[in-house]
């Protein structure tokens, strides 16, 4: 199983070289920053807008927050230029938050459906 081998060419991280040192242009950073500022203005603007129900307001605010977070993660945190594993890590953590929230809220919303006290 063990062989003498002098080079590390076979190492699986060899392809990571260009990915890990991708230099993003200053212009791109500034564009992203500008987009974040616009979204920030938008989220405050949406707050003052009466959209009929609080649920819609919440949904809009959260959507804008997610878009902002995605921009930061993709470009400031370089995920857009990173290996699939980084994508999986970033998406996976969000998925797990969703999982916790979904099961947690499912309990609270379905309480009382049975019309038996305490169920």
């Amino acid at each position, binding site marked *: 199983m063990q062989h003498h081998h002098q080079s590390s060419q076979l190492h699986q991280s060899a392809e990571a070289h260009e990915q*890990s040192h991708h*230099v993003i242009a200053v212009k791109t950073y500034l564009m992203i920053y500008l987009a974040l500022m616009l979204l*920030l203005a938008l989220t*405050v603007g949406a707050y003052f807008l009466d959209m009929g129900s609080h649920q819609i307001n919440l949904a809009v605010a959260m959507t804008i927050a997610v878009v902002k977070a995605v921009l930061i993660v993709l470009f400031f945190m370089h995920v857009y230029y990173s290996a699939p594993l980084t994508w999986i890590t970033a998406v996976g953590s969000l998925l797990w*938050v969703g999982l916790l929230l979904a099961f947690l809220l499912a309990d609270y919303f379905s309480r009382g459906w049975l019309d038996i006290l305490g169920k």
Partner: protein
Amino acid sequence: MQASTSTLPDAGTGRQILLSHFDDLDQQHLSSNLGMWFFLVSEVMFFSGLIGAYAVYRALSPVAFERASGHMDLWVGFFNTLVLLTSSLTMALAVRCSQIGDNRGIVRYLIATAVLGTVFLGVKGFEWKQEIDHHLLPGPHFVVPAEDAEALRAVSVGTDGQFDPVKYARNLGHFQMMFVLYFFMTGVHAFHMIVGVAAVLIFAVLAQIRWFSGYGTTQIEVLGLYWHFVDVVWVFLYPLLYLIG
């Protein structure tokens, strides 16, 4: 991250030092990067427990949360979000400088990041002071403002349309709960900011004295990931705490 065990001949020059248990620099860089990513995953889960508590109590008493949120100054929050997003930009530029080997740029942008982070913390502290002065810090001195108590009394009605004291008590409790969560979430976030500012300052000094090998690309990138994560948390906290109703 010290490299005392390095055996490479070019240690100390422009090239990054390789620790002895790694095969090559790419492996070393990838490991540090992934390590921070998985640490951030655990940080996300840490905050998600709080978001879970927030979601449950807000769903149970939406009006109480709206009234409580009304006491937070949305423009101060706006200003702080702006400051923090800007600090993320300067941090990203510091990382860029380390990638292209611009040592002066690294120091400049790191200091800018630390200054912006400190401004955020200062404003946050000022906000807390205001809230504490208004008896909104949960605990024995907490007072539900009269107009909020009135509003909550109005919505505390049972199925028969009559005033329901149990519901009223729960709404008052959830009014305070919003502040418990507000102080706790912003407090934990501020703690992360303090750690971040300290680390950014240390890194600025280390870059200034050229302590890093290879311009500290790996180290500064990893620090950048942390900083941006703290920023992302705030991006969610701002609408959840300030922009309700």
